[in-house]
């Protein structure tokens, strides 16, 4: 029941907000903040109670939903967590109240609608991570598109309509191809229970994996499906960008891991070289894109492509370190890129520009902003002691075991990352104040500090004590890795039967 309450509390709050009068923005914001904080508390409680060393699903809730006639497949309303989803759930739950807080600064019109969609979105995202029925997963997966479509389309900046329609159509195209795969999988296996499908040891058709992987690759986005991301990120309001970077893209990487690697280990092993290549190319290509940007927000958007390349690289290394690093890096990216978007939003609210050349010398006028900005950038480039380092190090280590070549390519991405982010830091914070108007900027206020502090704290925590988080994933990921070893072993022995075995048989 706890998971049901966790998932649907935001939706209930959204309904409450829809019924309240729209004039009283303070009350609406209070309701939204209260509801999301409550969910964050529940998420934290879930995280603490979760037993990391144990593989398999925990806190499963199940009730009958409907039966597909003809095939007689019962579809259940089934929620639960394992070592992969627990981190995503807690990340979503913790980010949401901060997003609501951040919206005080930049959403002044149609507050009621904004908070409504924000809360609907939270239910959609939590549903994606918690759903343990394939139909339910697909349901949440597509439903979660709609709120972001409205968030970007109504509260975005100048080119918002282009960006939001592009985002919607791009992702829905992938999802619909996945729908065909979902249907085939359910009807051929006779069940839509994710637990049962994961436990299935027979080899599933590779085209179903491909249809799933396409949808997730668009969502992540993996090169060459990344073009929607830069537009959506740049045009979205700050809250939308934070959610997009923090959680929505993680739906793609989560999907690749859960419904790609975990559900189709055979196909994933076969496809791993392709994804390693795409991941590593994404790291470098995203970094090069970021270096060329003059718009600070677009720069961070492109850096997302690069950082998510790391996640894909680590996951498809299919080694212990790679998998763990990949999952941890999902959280890290949510924290550091979320923070970066918050910071850009805050400086945009003051200067109404995102052009790198319009800044300069902000460290002198906004010292607190500068402090947060530097910490965030260092976390993003992977300074030891902060979260980014742990994730990237594990990923590169794990990848090196699988493929030294792509690991080396990935390392160059770390260097490029340091170049474009530190260059951006210099242009924004240091040097002389170029524009007179920048001398009178107000520094961060209490609300802004309060909403960023928890994320900075998390960044340091993961940097210093990563085992708090990695430990929770260990049981599930180790089981997954053993499974992959089995598949690899079976594949090898089938391809080249060892003489010893033949002798024994003889």
């Amino acid at each position, binding site marked *: 029941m706890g998971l049901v309450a966790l998932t649907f509390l935001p939706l209930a709050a959204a309904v409450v907000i829809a019924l309240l009068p729209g004039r009283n923005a303070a009350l609406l914001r209070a309701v939204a903040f209260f509801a999301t904080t409550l969910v964050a508390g529940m998420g934290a409680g879930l995280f603490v109670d979760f037993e990391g060393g144990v593989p398999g699903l925990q806190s499963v809730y199940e009730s*009958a*939903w*409907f*039966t*597909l*006639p*003809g*095939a007689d497949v019962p579809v259940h309303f089934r929620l639960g967590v394992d070592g992969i989803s627990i981190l995503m759930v807690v990340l979503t739950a913790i980010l949401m109240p901060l997003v609501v807080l951040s919206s005080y600064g930049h959403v002044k019109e149609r507050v009621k609608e904004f908070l409504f969609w924000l809360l609907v979105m939270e239910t959609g995202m939590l549903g994606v991570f918690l759903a343990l029925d394939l139909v339910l997963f*697909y*349901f*949440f997966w*597509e*439903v979660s*598109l*709609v709120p972001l*479509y*409205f968030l970007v*389309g*109504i509260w975005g900046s100048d080119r*918002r*309509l282009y960006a*939001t*329609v592009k985002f*919607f*159509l791009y992702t*829905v*195209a992938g999802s*619909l*191809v996945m*729908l*065909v795969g979902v*249907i*085939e999988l359910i*009807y051929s296996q006779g069940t839509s229970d994710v637990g049962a499908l994961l436990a299935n040891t027979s080899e599933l058709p590779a*085209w179903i994996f491909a249809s799933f992987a396409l949808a997730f690759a668009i969502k992540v986005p993996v090169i060459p499906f990344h073009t929607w991301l830069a537009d959506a990120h740049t045009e979205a309001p700050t809250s939308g960008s934070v959610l997009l970077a923090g959680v929505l893209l993680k739906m793609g990487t989560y999907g690749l891991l859960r419904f790609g690697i975990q559900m189709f280990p055979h196909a994933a092993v076969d496809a791993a070289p392709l994804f390693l290549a795409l991941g590593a190319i994404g790291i470098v290509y995203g970094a090069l894109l970021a270096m060329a940007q003059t718009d600070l927000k677009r720069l961070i958007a492109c850096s997302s492509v690069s950082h998510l390349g790391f996640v894909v690289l680590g996951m498809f290394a299919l080694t212990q370190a790679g998998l763990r690093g990949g999952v941890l890096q999902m959280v890290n990216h949510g924290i550091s890129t979320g923070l970066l978007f918050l910071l850009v939003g805050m400086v945009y609210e003051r200067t109404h520009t995102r052009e790198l050349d319009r800044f300069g010398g902000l460290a002198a006028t906004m010292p607190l902003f500068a402090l947060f900005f530097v910490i965030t950038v260092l976390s993003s480039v992977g300074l030891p002691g902060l979260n980014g380092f742990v994730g990237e190090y594990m990923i590169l280590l794990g990848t090196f075991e699988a493929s030294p070549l792509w690991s080396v390519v990935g390392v160059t991405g770390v260097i490029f990352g340091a170049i474009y982010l530190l260059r951006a830091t210099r242009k924004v914070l240091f040097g002389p104040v170029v524009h007179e108007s920048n001398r009178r900027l107000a520094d961060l206020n209490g609300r802004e500090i309060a909403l960023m502090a928890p994320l900075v704290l998390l960044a340091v925590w993961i940097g210093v004590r990563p085992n708090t988080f990695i430990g929770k994933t260990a049981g599930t990921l180790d089981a997954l890795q053993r499974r992959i070893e089995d598949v690899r072993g079976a594949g090898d022995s089938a391809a080249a039967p060892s003489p010893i075995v033949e002798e024994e048989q003889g």
Partner: protein
Amino acid sequence: MTTQDLAATFDRLLGPESAVATAPMLALGVGVLAFLIVDLFRTLGRLRPLVFLASVGTSFALELRILFADEVPGVVLDGSLHADHTTAIWGLLFLAGTLLAWIYSAGYYRHQDKPFKAEHDALMLTAPVGMMLMVGAGDLIVFFVGLEVLSIPLYALAAFRRARTDSVEAGLKYFVLGTFAAGFFLYGAALLYAATGHVSIDALAAADLSSPMALAGAAFVAASVFFKVSVFPFHLWVPDVYQGSPTPVTALMATGTKAAAFGFLIHAAGILPASAAGTVAAIALVTMAAGNLGALAQEDLKRMLAYSGVAHAGTLLLVVAGALALEERTAALNAALVYMAAYVFTATGAFGLVALLEADGDRFTKLESLRGLARTRPGTAAALALFMLSLGGIPATGGFLGKWFVFSVLVDADMVGVAVIGVLFSVVALGYYLRVIVAMYMQPPVEGKAPPTTVRPLTAGVATLACATMVLLLGVLPGWYLGWLG
């Protein structure tokens, strides 16, 4: 023939099963007759809504009786009609669609059309009788009677806004082309009879239809039905007729006619050879292309919905292709029942809202004048957005459930390639459905074109709420409806 023989024949024809099977149609027929009487007396005019509701309500109850009965009447009247759970669900959908269209028609017509209110309602009440006959038909002759009972009222209703040339044009166009299609049907049925000696659908499905004459007959019959459901290349009449007709009538045309004709198509799929599956799938995909690409180019909501109706007909035709490939029709029938249930409520709601917008003047159905609707009429905008998402097949709406079932049939029939092309057309479709939402929610109103605040009839609000509730119910908690299916 002795008296006993005659009595036995009557017993066989008019036994209790026949009575149960035909009762829903008879209830509507009684309602139509009551209209003629009520209309004679000026003082009884107020009873018209009551007659309509009583008649539809009785028919609804009688369909429910068949649906929940342990023993369905099955095949009655010497094999010419059948009544089972499937026809009962179809009947309920027709009645719901007719009732909603009728509710939206209240307050829709301008002053000059009012004198014919009774005729309007009587014609609307006749149409579902034809639909029920079409899905219940056991032979081609009964189907043809049903087709005409449905079509003739719609020809008249299409031209009901007499003062407007586009309405008269719509009526005439629909009538001329519809009669032509009816001629095709009769010609095809005659060829089938000449080739096989049967008009019964089951007998035709079992007969050898490989002779050129039989194939030509089947093709003519199929072409005629394709015209009714607006499948490529017989869809060209749709935009003009849908746009010119009074909008509540368009709603009935788009949902009822399509549902009834597809009900028949799937029932009679056996007349076409299994090898036709590929051809039918190709026609379906071309129809989807024609509908979706046509809709993308539209600037008027009503016309866009007309093209979207063509695209939906293409999607449903995929189900027919699946039924042919599988040589089994239960799955296809279920898919059609789910898809059409969602479509009846979604499209009727969408056309109903168009009818509401039209009350302010024709230009208010242009996409451009929808701008800013979310602020001026939040309820209308929210409902229209919901219907657009349902037409686009986004989860939490009935449209998604329908899409799921349609593509399940295709996957089951090993037509994965067709399914993938089909789903990609849904992406194109979302392109124009989203334009409506963009205009309503994301664009500011055009300067100086703020919509006038005409008073809306309460009835339209009730109908919209009913449609929206059903769309969400089918999308989120479909268990009860799926339980009705076989």
